[in-house]
């Protein structure tokens, strides 16, 4: 069931060509408009990718709410539906991350202190953003309100100075920490802290997304007739 849902969700996303075009364009636009300052361009690219993937996860989950409810009545497992859609979103997002890594390699690679961690930063951004959008969808299962919540999170993420201690609670702190290492001259401790933070947030948000989705979709307990 999980594989089938992942495959069908992937097909559904590929058919939404307008959404795909916007998803491709948004991070690229963020990147291109700040290309004069490569360090900002890289951060904007990563945050733009995060915003795109979180928003896509939000819309995917909210638009699937009704049909998920029906499938659960028919006997589908909440976990299988949830995991299937997460896998499709992660697969699509990681493909995008790879594409943007190629773009970075072709444009600003010569300016960067470390190139390979760019792929790590973009992939971790995707891994975090998908469950982030799912968490918002499960907590606020309406598209407009959910989009505004995500916009707020991403705007704060973009505006704050990551050196401040409290900013570690922000989901994409790892992205900016890794960007500091990529741009240089920050040391390897930034790489390690950023990676661990990203993995931790991926796991924590994935767990939270699953719990909230279960709460949202779990059918009422019904006994068999005596």
């Amino acid at each position, binding site marked *: *069931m999980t594989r089938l849902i992942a495959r069908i969700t992937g*097909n559904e996303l590929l058919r939404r060509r307008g959404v795909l075009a916007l998803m491709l364009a948004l991070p690229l636009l963020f990147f291109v408009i700040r290309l004069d300052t490569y360090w900002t361009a890289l951060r904007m690219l990563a945050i733009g990718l995060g915003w795109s993937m979180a928003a896509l996860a939000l819309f995917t989950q909210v638009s699937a709410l009704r*049909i998920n409810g*029906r499938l659960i009545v028919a*006997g*589908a497992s909440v976990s299988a539906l949830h995991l299937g859609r997460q896998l499709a979103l992660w697969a699509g997002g990681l493909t995008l991350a790879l594409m943007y890594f190629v773009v970075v390699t072709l444009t600003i690679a010569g300016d960067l202190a470390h190139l390979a961690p760019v792929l790590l930063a973009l992939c971790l951004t995707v891994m975090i953003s998908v469950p982030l959008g799912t968490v918002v969808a499960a907590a606020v299962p309406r598209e407009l309100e959910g989009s505004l919540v995500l916009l707020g999170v991403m705007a704060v993420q973009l505006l704050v100075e990551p050196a401040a201690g409290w900013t570690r609670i922000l989901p994409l702190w790892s992205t900016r920490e890794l960007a500091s290492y990529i741009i240089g001259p920050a040391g390897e401790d930034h790489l390690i802290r950023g990676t661990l933070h990203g993995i931790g947030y991926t796991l924590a948000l994935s767990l939270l997304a699953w719990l909230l989705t279960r709460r949202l979709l779990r059918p009422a307990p019904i*006994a*068999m*007739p*005596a």
Partner: protein
Amino acid sequence: MAELSAAGLPDAEIRTLTDDALAEADDAGNDPASLFGPAVTFARELAAASRGSQPARIRDRVATTSPAESEVVLRLEGVSVRRGRRRVLDGLDLELRRGQVLAVVGANGSGKTTLLEVCAGQLRPERGTVQRTRSVGHAPQQNALAPALTVDEHLMMFGAARDIGPERAIATGHHLLAQLGWRSSGRELVGALSGGTQQKLNVVLAQLDRPDLLLLDEPYQGFDQNTYVDLWELIGGWRDAGTAVLLVTHLLRDLDQVDQVLELPAPVEVSR
């Protein structure tokens, strides 16, 4: 009068309602049709208003099916549901057995769709208990399909939810769709289908594995006359095969084809 009678109102109440309406038109110096609009529509409004002050009740229409010893597939006891400040179901008792068809009628907002959601397990009642067979199909009224998916992708997903392989789900689905007068290639995007054709798929998805209980919320929406007849032939066949059907309807002509009618009263405002 025939519409009021079909709605299940007692003869004495029908006479009172029609006499009052005629007297009102006479007093106003108008033809009843110009004052009240089409007779059938007005009769339905009268029937709904008349039921508004009464508790939910079940009337037996036909005694040809539903032997008392057949298996119970749905039982509601004392079920109450609030929607905001309105109590839409209040202490509802209901029992449905294999091979029975129950129509749920009532005015807008009386809780027909809410009742189906409670039976499906999508909504927890405020009070009361629900017992139900695990083998259930649910065809909701709206937004029950994914527009960017094909017909076959829907059939495969709903088949997988019921542990039916993709080939069998597609074959069964196409067969049922053909019985409703539509031969699908399976590759059509659902969002590109007409409302009536989407509704055919909606009904078929609920019936894919011949569940013991079928919950249908106004399943004929968008159907042409032939499909409407085909649907009732299918429901008759499912009933004969032992499926229990709980059907929300606004069409009084449906009531002649069901075993029982559940009339839901208008919702009641409750204090917080």
